[in-house]
């Protein structure tokens, strides 16, 4: 038993990992202690663990995503250290492989997506004048499944060993023949659990946006961020089932001995690559379209102008969504599918750049004849434009299959996707967070610190990733832990950039603390002279969002309301508001899911079955639960609103 514990269960023999274990235990003890000392357990349970409020769920998503950004960032710094001092064996090849695998997986699945979904959660219901999402209970289930999936995935670092086959987890290398053991199972099960939650989010937001809009808000009057969320949800709904199946098939391969992607039994490893990218390419648009939406909101707000070419913006997103399902082969042009196939996918891929370009020019058009202010959210948006264009044009270069044979698997590719993912998604998350921060927390983030963190991050980002294009031309492959002497200088430059980015991130996080302490509190709801309905409520937002549901009379609903002097509080027209009740079931259900997942990872079937029975029992309880929520009385609404609006005038 002890033998098993020390040799297989716990990861041993590495100071880095002992350090991680010790710090995890210490942090857990500290959290438990603080919660007990301040008697906050009840508060935590009532206000957060059981909440179904889209605003709180959104905030939890964002906090978790920032924690994951930290973990992924540490991974990145470890990799950069290794590549700067390759001779020192700072990391051996196995460690390096584990670290770039967890880096990639965490950044895409547990950072980028939850960050954006968190913003969607907070903002979309407010933007469409709704009081919550369509299925608040399901929304909580989504969040906890993400949290549990992330927890399980991160646990691999200290228990059992991290996955080490890259975020793409290609077969047969990741299959049962060449890579047995729990590590890849962590990848499969962690992604499966959180992926199902994401799928539920997609369905939830489709129903929300289609059915819960305030009266008068036709589709073509929706704020552009809501549009981007709608289209993202649509992509999620059709792309995530593919991931579900792919993960399930490989799990069955590994645990139950089927032969889908194996080297034996006539299995077909190539099928994994196809299924993975059939989901994977839409996935990259899942993490960029909401960011596009954020930039549109931010740019139009700070240029103080209506969005330029609204219709073109919407249609370009629709076209991007459609095309995103017919380009997946560009991730393996080098598989030898034949000249015809490669030509077809080259062209479809390049076509995506056309609607993308249209969006870029429309953002420029939005600023044209504007009156541009340079607050921090706007800086992120302005930094995004040139950097993302660089990522887009290198994407087009990669799309030219004949040339891609030379770029594929090199640092050129690494530079491309960081140019789009960091300048696009991460800048977008930061822009969105600083933009909606006052709405979430009742105060702005400090501008000076915000600008410092922006400039560090932007310059660091370019210093880090521009050299990588040249490294690609010099023949440096991705995912290698050792490098040739001639690649050294550029790698050192790149690492300097990584450090600058880390400083930028640290300042960003410090700014959260600093602003909490020192920023002036918001006295009214409209922090930036905003244009969409989220700015129409008071700050802090009452749990029911809108006392009276606004009537929408055109695009930019709140802009129009301001001109007409209307508010979302019509004293004489109040009605009791129906709200859903909180529930502990989602949390408990996903705790059981964790047990089931952990059992599957270790192939302890009894544990897995026990966990699954727990999950089913929770569903059972839910099915018999006829709690329809409660009504907020008119008096309570009046009291809340008067209090929130007292300081306004």
């Amino acid at each position, binding site marked *: 038993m002890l033998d098993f514990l020390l040799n297989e269960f716990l990861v041993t023999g590495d100071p880095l990992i002992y350090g991680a274990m010790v710090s995890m235990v210490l942090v857990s003890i500290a959290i438990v202690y603080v919660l007990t000392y301040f008697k906050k357990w009840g508060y935590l349970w009532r206000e957060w663990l059981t909440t179904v409020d889209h605003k709180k769920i959104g905030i939890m998503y964002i906090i978790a995503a920032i924690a994951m950004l930290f973990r992924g960032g540490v991974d990145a710094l470890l990799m950069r250290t290794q590549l700067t001092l390759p001779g020192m064996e700072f990391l051996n090849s196995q460690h390096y492989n584990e670290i770039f695998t967890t880096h990639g997986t965490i950044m895409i699945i547990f950072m980028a997506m939850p960050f954006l979904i968190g913003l969607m959660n907070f903002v979309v219901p407010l933007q469409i004048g709704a009081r919550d999402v369509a299925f608040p209970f399901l929304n909580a289930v989504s969040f906890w499944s993400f949290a549990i999936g992330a927890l399980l995935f991160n646990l691999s670092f200290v228990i059992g060993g991290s996955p080490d086959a890259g975020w793409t987890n290609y077969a047969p290398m990741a299959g049962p023949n060449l890579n047995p053991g729990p590590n890849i199972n962590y990848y499969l099960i962690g992604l499966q659990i959180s992926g199902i939650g994401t799928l539920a989010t997609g369905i939830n937001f489709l129903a929300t946006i289609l059915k819960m809009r305030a009266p008068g808000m036709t589709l073509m009057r929706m704020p552009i961020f809501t549009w981007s969320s709608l289209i993202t949800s649509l992509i999620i709904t059709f792309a995530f089932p593919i991931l579900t199946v792919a993960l399930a098939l490989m799990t069955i391969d590994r645990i139950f001995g089927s032969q889908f992607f194996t080297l034996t039994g006539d299995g077909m490893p190539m099928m994994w690559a196809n299924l993975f990218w059939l989901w994977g390419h839409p996935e990259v648009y899942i993490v960029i379209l909401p960011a596009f939406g954020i930039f549109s909101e931010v740019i139009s707000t700070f240029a103080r102008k209506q969005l330029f070419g609204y219709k073109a913006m919407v249609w370009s997103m629709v076209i991007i969504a459609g095309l995103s399902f017919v380009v997946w082969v560009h991730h393996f042009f080098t598989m030898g599918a034949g000249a015809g196939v490669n030509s077809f996918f080259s062209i479809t891929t390049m076509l995506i750049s056309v609607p993308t370009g249209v969006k870029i020019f429309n953002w420029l058009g939005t600023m044209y004849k504007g009156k541009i202010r340079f607050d921090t959210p706007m800086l992120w948006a302005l930094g995004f434009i040139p950097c993302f264009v660089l990522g887009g044009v290198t994407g087009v270069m990669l799309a030219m299959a004949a040339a891609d044979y030379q770029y594929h*698997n090199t640092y050129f590719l690494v530079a491309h996707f960081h140019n789009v993912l960091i300048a696009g998604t991460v800048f977008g998350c930061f822009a969105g967070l600083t933009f909606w921060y006052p709405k979430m927390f009742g105060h702005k983030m400090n501008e000076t610190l915000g600008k410092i963190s922006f400039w560090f991050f932007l310059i660091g980002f370019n210093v880090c990733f521009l050299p990588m294009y*040249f490294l690609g031309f010099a023949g440096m*492959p991705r995912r290698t832990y050792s490098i040739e002497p001639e690649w050294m200088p550029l790698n050192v430059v790149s690492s300097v950039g990584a450090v600058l980015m880390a400083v930028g991130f640290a300042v960003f996080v410090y700014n959260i603390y600093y602003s909490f302490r020192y920023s002036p509190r918001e006295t009214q709801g409209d922090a930036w002279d905003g244009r969409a309905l989220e700015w129409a409520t008071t700050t802090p937002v009452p749990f029911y969002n809108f006392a009276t549901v606004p009537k929408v009379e055109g695009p930019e609903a709140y802009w129009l309301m301001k001109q007409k002097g209307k508010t979302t509080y019509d004293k004489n027209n109040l009605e009791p508001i129906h709200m859903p009740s909180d529930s502990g079931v989602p949390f408990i259900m996903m705790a059981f899911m964790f047990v089931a997942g952990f059992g599957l990872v270790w192939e302890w079937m009894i544990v897995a079955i026990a966990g699954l029975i727990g999950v089913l029992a929770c569903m059972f309880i839910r099915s018999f639960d006829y709690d329809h929520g409660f009504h907020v009385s008119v008096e309570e609404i009046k009291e809340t609103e008067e209090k929130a609006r007292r300081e306004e005038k």
Partner: protein
Amino acid sequence: MKYRWGKYVALLAAALLLMIGSGCSDMTVLDPKGPVGESQRDLIVFSIIMMLFIVAVVMVALTYILVKFRERPDRGDKDYDPDHEGNTKLEIIWTVVPLIIVTALSVPTVITIFQLEEPPESSSDKEPLVVHATAADWKWFFSYPEQDIETVNYLHIPTDRAIEFRLSSADSMASLWIPALGGQKYNMAGMETKLYLQADEAGTYQGRNSNFTGTGFAEQTFDVHAEPAEEFESWVEETQQNAPELTQSEYDKLLAPGLLEEMEFSSTHLEYVDHGEMDGSDYLIERHQEAFEELPHLEGGRGVGDE
């Protein structure tokens, strides 16, 4: 604001110059030694020019707009038009121009894609030399069926003659890449892909597996010795005469996951198994499954350090 942007641009430009200055001589992909790499280089250079044009347009427009339309105390509402919401003519232009650019890029791309599936024109007077390149964790086997010789982790090829690589793998999916000669293609178990390359200049080039395959991936490299036909022939003869035969049991032993030195043999493993055929795909697993149960400890090989 203006100064900050200026500073940033200057900094970027300096960094770029530095990089290009320090890196240019080593940019293998842009300095190819054979017709395949050259046609790819031409495509790359053409696309870089087009793309720089786009980047320049966006940068200039962005800078102009930011400078002209930023809020300044002396500006007031001059040129401010909050209701300006679109311009059909402009929108058509910036849809059609990118479409034209995409077309301009597609045509040479498609032509090159088709070209690369055939042996290069410049040596069409000679039959291509067939070399089976088989990847296994974490080494390369090169079999010359016509010459009946096999090498491990290095390659000799004649110059001015097309090489027809028949790629396959005994286990993980690898990718054969010799950047100085041209782009890569995957090696997969149970199937065969074909890659044509050719060296016009004699020399020693770096080749590697560029597709991640696990622990020994970084060490899965090989040298390519390109030499004039006569020299190549004499190397072949020498190998045929001096190298030992590759027995099946020896080959099976070499397949075990790990690193290998450079080796040569006077027969090929194709007599025992062709990993490029469906029946060959479980050959290695049947012999070495248990070797993958433990994390390998790698030793020896032609590692990166000792070059």
